[in-house]
């Protein structure tokens, strides 16, 4: 067997290995997405789909006051959730990476994944139990005599969404940040100290820039899916807590206007991608500045 033939077989082995996930993605992601894209240019004519090309759905999605308001609210909540999650995740990741003895690190990582042992829905319901009118917090506060009436601002508002989503996503933020921190050569931190920096300056000049890839990953991992979440707002968001994803669901189901739903979904996708891009661009600039 000559060399080029071996190379050829190796190349094909690579193709064979990637093809199942490739076709899977094509079948279950690319095709449906193209379907949604096509749908967004059509119109719903009572029970029939009118397949004539139109941009009306997009016009409505971008100019309708309700859609604009929901989109902005979704963005606001996603940004808040992302900020809160990353800010809370960083110290945890830092602690595990820098202060937990190496032998105990796997145990800590394992502990962080424990919330995933219960279903997402159950976790949301637990937040309802905690934040609710007769819930854990109100019950405790009344019990110790701090308040007479249950607090009503805990549940069924946007704050409850932020708390619930942050809690749900925090392990996803801890892991990439932890990995980035683990990868930092400890002698770099000693070098920084050796060259005259105290702990705070060292963190700003060395640890943080080197942890950036993890922080970026965490930010995107949290930001992108939260904007599409519709279960959490429905269960803990209350009347003022509905988001764009809820509207998309309504359009596809109750309102029987799948084309508008498709246009809303793609618009949301566009907005999220743009924001992610802008974020990446800013970050690259920040890292360049450090050079």
């Amino acid at each position, binding site marked *: 067997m000559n060399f080029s033939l071996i190379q050829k077989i190796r190349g094909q082995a690579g193709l064979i290995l990637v093809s199942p996930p490739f076709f899977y993605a094509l079948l279950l992601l690319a095709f449906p997405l193209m379907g949604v894209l096509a749908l967004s240019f059509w119109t719903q004519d009572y029970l029939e789909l009118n397949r004539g090309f139109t941009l009306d759905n997009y016009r409505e999605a971008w100019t309708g006051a309700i859609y604009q308001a929901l989109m902005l609210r979704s963005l606001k909540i996603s940004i808040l959730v992302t900020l809160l999650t990353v800010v809370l995740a960083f110290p945890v990741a830092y602690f595990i990476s820098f202060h937990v003895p190496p032998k105990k690190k796997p145990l800590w990582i394992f502990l962080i994944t424990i919330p995933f042992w219960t279903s997402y829905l159950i976790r949301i319901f637990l937040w309802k139990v905690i934040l609710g009118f007769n819930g854990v917090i109100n019950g405790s506060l009344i019990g110790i005599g701090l308040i007479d009436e249950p607090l009503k601002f805990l549940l069924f508002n946007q704050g409850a969404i932020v708390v619930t989503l942050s809690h749900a996503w925090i392990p996803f933020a801890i892991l990439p940040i932890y990995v980035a921190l683990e990868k930092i*050569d400890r*002698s*770099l931190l*000693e*070098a*920084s*100290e*050796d*060259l*005259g*920096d*105290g702990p705070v*300056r060292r963190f700003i*000049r*060395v640890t943080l*820039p*080197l942890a950036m890839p993890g922080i970026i990953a965490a930010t995107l991992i949290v930001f992108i899916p939260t904007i599409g979440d519709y279960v959490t707002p429905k269960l803990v968001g209350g009347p003022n807590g509905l988001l764009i994803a809820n509207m998309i669901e309504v359009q596809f189901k109750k309102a029987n206007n799948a084309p508008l739903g498709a246009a809303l979904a793609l618009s949301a996708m566009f907005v999220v991608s743009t924001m992610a891009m802008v974020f990446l661009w800013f970050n690259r600039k920040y*890292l360049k500045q*450090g*050079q």
Partner: protein
Amino acid sequence: MKQETNSEAKPIIRIESIQKNYGVIEALKSISFNINQGEFLTLLGPSGCGKTTLLRVIAGFEIPNAGLVEIDGNNMEGIPANQRPTNMVFQSYAVFPHMTVGKNVAYGLRARKADRQTISEEVNKALAMVGMEGFNDRPSTALSGGQRQRVALARALILKPKVLLLDEPLSALDKRLREQMQSELRQLQRSVGITFILVTHDQEEALTMSDRIAVMFDGKIAQLASPKELYRRPTNIQVANFVGTMNFLNLDLLAQEGGDLVVEIEGLGKTTLTIDQAPLGYQSNSMAGIRPEMFTIITNQGQAKPMIAKGRIAETQYFGDMTYFDANLEGTDRVVTISMRNSDISFDINIGDDVEIGWNPNSILVLN
């Protein structure tokens, strides 16, 4: 020993009874010595002997359990690494990957909040010093090992430390580059006049670069001496074994006449040694040590003969300029290593040849 008692040299570092334990492991067992201003001192020893720990104690990265480190007359107790007048070149170089070469070198000056103008001038000077002019804007990830090493040096020297600490800085380089960097480091040290403390496990590196070498074993300094002294007069078997090659032969004391020792050396016979050749005296476990180059294979009958032993060649290793022979000494099962310059060998010596081995009683050391 001469340099140690030199009263003119002023100690820049005083180390007194430094002890460092990790749990039950004693990494440093009460180490005391002085390092002189402008000296190139090497801490030499096998891995795990505590040499890096000692360096890190001086740098302030490790806090000793007991003892005193004094730098330039100031007690360093409680002073963190970032406030000590020392800088370090790390084994991995620790060049910041997210910064350019220029920003790396400027790091310490920025930490000191120097002004832009000064920083830029000093960075250029420092880069020129290590032969890397014009590399300011290179990303540090695009550097070779040797270049990284130079950046790490420039980054440390730009701060004009009183002492530069080097933790096995050359171990990651290939042989040729390592040799080049050895002589460059030595020249650099002479020109800047800063005290260098180098940690290495490479005895050749230690011998070629240092003013003095502290040989460490098991958390203690076994010998602190100039390279010459260390090679010629190691104080014990362990040091002799670690620094260069040494042949060890069994030794019996026949008589002690005044200061002289009359001894019977395995394979070499009876001879008289001066007390000078037994720095720590004769003990029952003493051995006779002789360097390979102190043996000669007699190839020229007219050659002046010192003492003669007989042996049979068991192995030869040819190195171009030198040849190493392993010879079995007659009447023993002891194999000794003999090194000869090839220009001194007038006929072929092959495995199995019976040869006469010349040696000189002066070159024998009695070691424990």
